[in-house]
């Protein structure tokens, strides 16, 4: 369970988040919507442990990650979070297989059976040894999804995962995400501009001027 209490985030003197209170249950699929610059990505970064708020608490299963040290945050991300980005953000110089295996490798795990499984699931068979630039956008995003799930994290954070794909491919990607999430019972927080994408979620939270609209 994730719980944000009066979370405030500043960039210099610019207050981007002005007291966010938000509760996300374990296994919940939440969509966050809001206009550009409203602070969605900032919020996701706080939950994902990429950043700490200036004020307020971020509880993840009872632990306040806002009080974590850098090292603790790193470990938290490595073990518990999976990120999916708009621009895929695959590492260009390693193969599809290695990109997917990366989170496992970071935990010194040598068991690659899950990598193979996700390659199959994502319909990437035969692309193991390809490099990211040899894939289409949809394929790259599927690699990114596999990478987000491979180490079995509890929380999946997706920042406009379909933003740079056409609507058909976008829906296909969303179908895949929903399917995997249902099976694995993961908490998903999805940021999107598109209402039809938001519909994949169980609940929609709207953010405006740094606060969650009731």
């Amino acid at each position, binding site marked *: 369970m994730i719980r944000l209490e009066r979370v405030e985030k500043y960039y210099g003197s610019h207050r981007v988040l002005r007291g966010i209170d938000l509760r996300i249950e374990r296994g919940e699929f939440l969509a966050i919507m809001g206009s550009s610059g409203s602070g969605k990505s900032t919020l996701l970064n706080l939950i994902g442990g990429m*950043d700490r708020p200036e004020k307020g608490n971020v509880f993840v299963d009872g632990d306040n990650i806002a009080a974590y040290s850098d090292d603790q945050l790193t470990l938290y991300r490595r073990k518990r979070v999976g*990120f999916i980005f708009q*621009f895929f953000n*695959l*590492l*260009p*110089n*390693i193969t599809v297989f290695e990109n997917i295996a990366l989170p496992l490798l*970071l935990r010194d795990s040598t068991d690659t059976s899950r990598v193979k499984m996700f390659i199959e699931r994502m319909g990437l068979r035969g692309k193991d040894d390809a490099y990211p*630039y040899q894939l289409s956008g949809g394929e790259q995003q599927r690699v990114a999804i596999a990478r987000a799930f491979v180490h079995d994290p509890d929380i999946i954070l997706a920042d406009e995962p379909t933003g740079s794909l056409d609507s058909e491919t976008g829906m296909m990607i969303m179908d895949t995400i929903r399917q995997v999430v249902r099976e694995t019972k993961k908490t998903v927080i999805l940021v999107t501009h598109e209402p039809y994408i938001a519909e994949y979620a169980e609940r929609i939270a709207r953010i405006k001027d740094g606060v969650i609209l009731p």
Partner: protein
Amino acid sequence: MTFPRLLKMLVIRNIREDKFFAVLSVIGIALGTGLFTGVKVASDRAISSFESEIHGISPVATYEIYDSAGTDFDERVYPTIRRISPDSLPVIRTFGFLPAWKDAIDIHGIYSLKAARFLRRGMTGAGTGRGALFSALDWESFYRTENGVFVPKELCDRYLLKKGDTMEAFVYDRAVTLTISDMLPAGTLPGTTVLMDIGNFQDAFRKTGLLTRIDLAVDEGTAGEIRAILPPHLAIAKKEELIENRKGLVTSFRYNLQFVSLIAILVGVFLLYNTVFMTVVKRRTEIGILRALGMERKTVIFLFTAQGLLLGLVGSLIGIAFGQLAAYFSVIAVEKTVSTLYSTIAISDYLLSGRDVLMSLALGTCISLIASLVPAYEASTIRPHETSREGSFEGRYRPYERALACAGIASIVIGISLAYLDYRYAPFSFPLLAYIGILFMIGGFTLVSPFTLVLMLKLLKRPAERFFRSSATLSAGDLRGNAYRFSVALMSVATSSALIFSLLIVIFSLRGSLQSWIDRNITADIYIKPASCKANYCFAPMSEDIVRAVESIPEVEAVDRFRGLHLDLFGKKVVAGFFDTGVKRTFLQRRHRDREYETVLREMENGEPVVGISEFLAIRHGLKKNETIEIQSPAGPVPFRIIDISSSYSTTSGYLAFHRRWLKTLWGLDDTTQMSAYVKAGADVGDVIAGLKARLLPSYALEIMNNRELRGKILDIFNKSFAITYAIELISIAVSLTGVISTLLSLVIERKREIGILRYLGTDWGQIRRTFVLSAGCIGITGIMLGTVLGLLMSLILIHVVNTISFGWEIQFRIPFLFLAVLSGLVFLTTVLAGSLPATIAKKIDPKRFISFE
């Protein structure tokens, strides 16, 4: 008008942003061109000092008469010559040494009136007004004062001397006080030439009735006429030919140093290439956009070439200042080397001329043009949409990997073949082919390096992943994906370690060989030579008093009197040494057992005309043992059988070793130019030397050394004459190691985004650091491997081709394994440290900036 704007926007901003790399490449270019210019200036000045030495004070002289053995000759031949050609100037000259400033001067004894006439004749042609200047001098003091001399203003300025001052000088075997009768205006004569009246000279230095040469302003016909009447020991030769002959002395020195500075230039080119290439990579988005907006390809090429040229220009401007500094030190080095290995040479001018400056600028501009054209061309091939596809920039080189490797191997093979050709046939008097061969090899290794890196990755990846897990995967991906850029770093490591290795192997081998030469040759207890002679071999005889004094000391068991002569061999001057082989042989075994040499010495004593020659001559003229060579003597050519060929580390112009008896029978001489003495068993060498000094030094200026001192001095001379080479190589090494840091650093700057991604994935700083260090380590190991192979090849060529051709020194190839291992370790450590530096910088990057805001 848009071009300057673009220039400012892209080029100037790039330079400002990447100050570090810009500065590095500027330094690289500056060092390279500076060294090159410095060395060129030094050898040019050496040559012009030969020219002025041979021309002497008579600019119109075309021929000179000299004794072919290099000794002074009887002046009674002069009246006959004068009858044929009144335009003749008899000269007696010698080198003096100013102990106060450790500087050499060239003392000419001249017939003043005749000289003035001779010069005035030269004046009509050249219009220098020398004659007029001469008449204004204080001739009164010149004639009257004891040891009165005219000294060039340059020399006076340098040592703050003025008319009427005196200076202490070692001349022949004595110390004398010269009085400055007047100053010669600047520019009249070379800065080290000192004039003395010939009568005073002969009188003061006990050379009555002797001349060193007669300068003649004659045409070929008259020269032939004179040749016909000259006694056999005298020769007449064209000044131009003598100069040409002399130039050979500095050629090897010049080309060796220029080659080393070429390597420094190469390193500079590497750095500049890397800098421009990096900007191209960094700016590829902008280039893509500009191309999409309709910018022409040639404008892109132009822009990036401009960047390289700008850096190159700044580099070569700084290079001029550095070149001046380098010129100063190379002049000292040339002076030292030529003076000890051949005979005294005095260079006073080391300032860059306008032409040198232009050459240096042109060189810097050319190399920066070359270094930036390639990446500029690469930039122009970037397609407008290329930016969106990660990795494709490097990716398109992949198909050429094998082709490049093949070309590289071909180039290495060509390089080795060229060196081998030089080894077998030595078609030039300096090792040109070997040098070109080395360049080919370096080029070849550069071309092979991407392939080698990829190969190493294939080999190392699996085992590395077992130990380092994700870091290994990431590092391998990084290296593979940027193989071309990493190859630059790889070659930096490879060239610097190759330089270190070859240098060490050469030093080590040389020292070993030198040691055995010293063991064979430096066997006496005491060594004595005139203090005015700073060369290894002296040619001006010492007073017989000195010899007698040494012989009369009861503790001295035997004396080896040595006589050095300059002889013509196949039209080139070589050094001939005449010594007492009996004494040498008797005492040879005291310090060192050398049966072979003993046999050689014994054979020399037999009375047969036999000679030992230096390897240099054997190589140059294809001579072998038991062949016969004709030695020109006053009594005509005499055939001598070669019985020994050995290295001579004491001269670079070829050496002939004779039994002393031939000096008397063929040249009619029985004097001594330097000597060594063996002390009776039980006697204390130190005491004997102290006694000798007490007895001789009041009246003579001599250098008296014991065995250990001489050995030390020889080693010291060696170290000094190699010092400049070491310095240049050290600079190249330092610059190439910075190349490693610069490449790794550039990769971090480019890799900001990827580091950001990794942070999102939960990578900790340790893992990121490990990734960089692994990459650096892999570069280090591969570079050291390539460097070892290249270094071995280079040292083989340096030792067996370059050394033998340019110095005639046969060197025993030895590898200092332990040293090399330690050094490889150090180089490896340096690269690893270089790898952790970027990791520290990576830490400052805010990952969110590169992920959230695309």
